[in-house]
């Protein structure tokens, strides 16, 4: 079977548009609501789902995603439950790729072999593990590739030409270009500068390049979609979840629709990107 990630980026390319990659935190604000949200994402226009695995110490995340992780942990989310969520999603959707995103410690403690086996069996397609640079490839990246899961790498403004080949070496699926040095939810980048960086990456790889960090509105999404193969939106979606909650932090009947409304608008933005260019 062709990888769901490859198939989806190929489809977007055929439609002459960028793919929309949406991030939500598993278990935010609670496990059931989060499953509903994830199930609603493809219908709203998401091409790829990045599913955050909550961690107590998300060093590379800004306030929005930190808060989402803490909400999920407070509601009892665990790595095992996150894999259950993937399994439940996959029962009804065979096509939308799911990329697990998080930090290494919960995976390491769960056991690398066991995690890879269970993630694959649940129907995940790949993973992004923020605190595993190429220098630590033996930990998870190489075993993941061997088990047929994509290990998606972050390239950043500090990744120079000398380092780029190492960063692109053991990777699959797509390359995630972090548009600004900073945490998630950071300041919106200068889209022209980012365009140059994407061109540079494309000279080094045939993989699709998705751009994220600081993409908050349909307009931002359109600007990036003009030159990138994918647009990643996280903090803005997670913020929409946060704003829909009641005073006690519980889901309301507006929670799922708050997310789908934003994702639909972002999907429209992504589709405008090339038309305008």
């Amino acid at each position, binding site marked *: 079977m062709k990888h769901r990630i490859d198939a989806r980026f190929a489809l977007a390319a055929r439609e002459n548009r960028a793919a929309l990659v949406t991030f939500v935190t598993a278990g935010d604000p609670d496990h059931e609501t989060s499953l509903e949200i994830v199930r609603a994402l493809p219908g709203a226009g998401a091409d790829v789902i990045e599913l955050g695995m909550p961690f107590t*110490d998300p060093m*590379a995340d800004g306030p929005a995603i930190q808060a989402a992780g803490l909400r999920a942990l407070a509601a009892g989310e665990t790595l095992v439950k996150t894999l259950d969520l993937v399994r439940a999603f996959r029962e009804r959707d065979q096509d939308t790729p799911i990329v697990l995103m998080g930090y290494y*410690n919960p995976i390491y403690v769960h056991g690398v072999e066991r995690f890879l086996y269970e993630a694959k069996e649940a129907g995940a397609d790949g993973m992004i593990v923020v605190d595993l640079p190429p220098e630590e490839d033996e930990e998870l990246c190489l075993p993941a590739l061997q088990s047929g899961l994509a290990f998606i790498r972050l390239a950043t*403004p500090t990744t120079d030409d000398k380092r780029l080949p190492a960063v692109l070496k053991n990777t699959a699926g797509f390359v995630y270009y972090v548009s600004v040095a*900073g*945490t998630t939810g950071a300041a919106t980048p200068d889209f022209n500068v980012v365009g140059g960086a994407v061109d540079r990456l494309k000279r080094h790889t045939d993989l699709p390049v998705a751009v994220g960090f600081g993409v908050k509105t349909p307009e931002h999404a359109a600007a990036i979609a003009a030159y990138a193969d994918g647009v990643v939106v996280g903090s803005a979606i997670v913020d929409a979840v946060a704003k829909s909650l009641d005073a006690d932090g519980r889901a309301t009947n507006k929670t799922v629709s708050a997310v789908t409304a934003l994702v639909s608008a972002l999907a429209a933005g992504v589709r405008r990107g090339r038309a305008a260019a």
Partner: protein
Amino acid sequence: MTAQPQPNSFRTGPDERGRFGIFGGRFVAETLMPLILELEAEYETAKKDPAFHAEMESYRTHYIGRPSPLYFAERLTEHLGGAKVYLKREELNHTGSHKVNNVLGQILLARRMGKKRVIAETGAGQHGVATATLCARFGLECVVFMGAVDVARQAPNVFRMKMLGATVVPVQSGAKTLKDAMNEALRDWVTNVADTFYCIGTVAGPHPYPAMVRDFQSIIGIETRAQMQEMEGRLPDSLIACVGGGSNAIGLFHPFLDESDVAIYGVEAAGFGLSGLNAASIAGGAPGVLHGNRTYLLMDKDGQIEEGHSISAGLDYPGIGPEHAWLNDIGRVKYLSATDDEAVSAFQLLSKLEGIIPALESAHAIAKVVELAPGLPKDHLMVVNLSGRGDKDVPQIAERLGTSL
């Protein structure tokens, strides 16, 4: 795990990947990786440069006030009735603790690298004060991240940092202690990579920090060796130090690791006791990955980091430096723990017997001296690292003893 084969030397680590056995490494986001490699290269160059060592030596002597004395604690020794107890007086350093040894090295390195802005995390505030001090001395911008809980319990140090011109950022995330301060410092570093030097306060973080901070702190053990030779004509029989991240401990221990006749003890913070909330990562933790390295961590079965507890802000950290994790597993160093209550008693005991008010952190090591020394012969030479002075803890101890200042 003492059945593992013993290496020829305990002093050769880390390997080129920054590992001490399975511990250590470089578990950081890609944005930081190029900086960490640059820092490593810069440190390797500096290490070979006599000018770097000469500069460091000069500031050690004239600014920090080294060497720190090795002092025979006569009344404590009499009181305990066993081993002859020596105090390595790191509390007499400028700024009041061992932390300044490391900060001096890192700030000189930051200057070589042309960095104008320095960030640091701090628990007790001693590392923050030392960093603010050297930044003042060299005219560098200084931002210190400190958990909001620690800001409250170490108020004197917060004010000192501000006096020195530093910005203190109270961190509101997580348990609002040292771990969270370190998260926030890493977030700042990722955001300000171009001009910022991250001055880590202990032997933790990604490679090369654990090795570099150890090297800068090893002056403690190097001096102790020479001083003990001079005073007693031989090496000590045992060494003991408190362990938060483990920088004062490794600084004392490292020059002695290959002396097989020297017994070595690290003391973790047992908080309310090992069956309650504590900060003893070796006694109560398991191997995991946090803040750039693999080490023993306090965490739940799902790999979520747990909030430790210690009365001492400087030991209130759910991890330990990776070299200590390795020294534990191969059995070279024995790790003990002391509770809040034991530390407070030791704090009072040393104050009354020797006229030296120890930092609450150091009081954890004193607490184990109180336990071990009476059972040892009178010619047993024991060195305890008095890592800091207790002035910063006076308001907290007063409150605990029911006195309002």
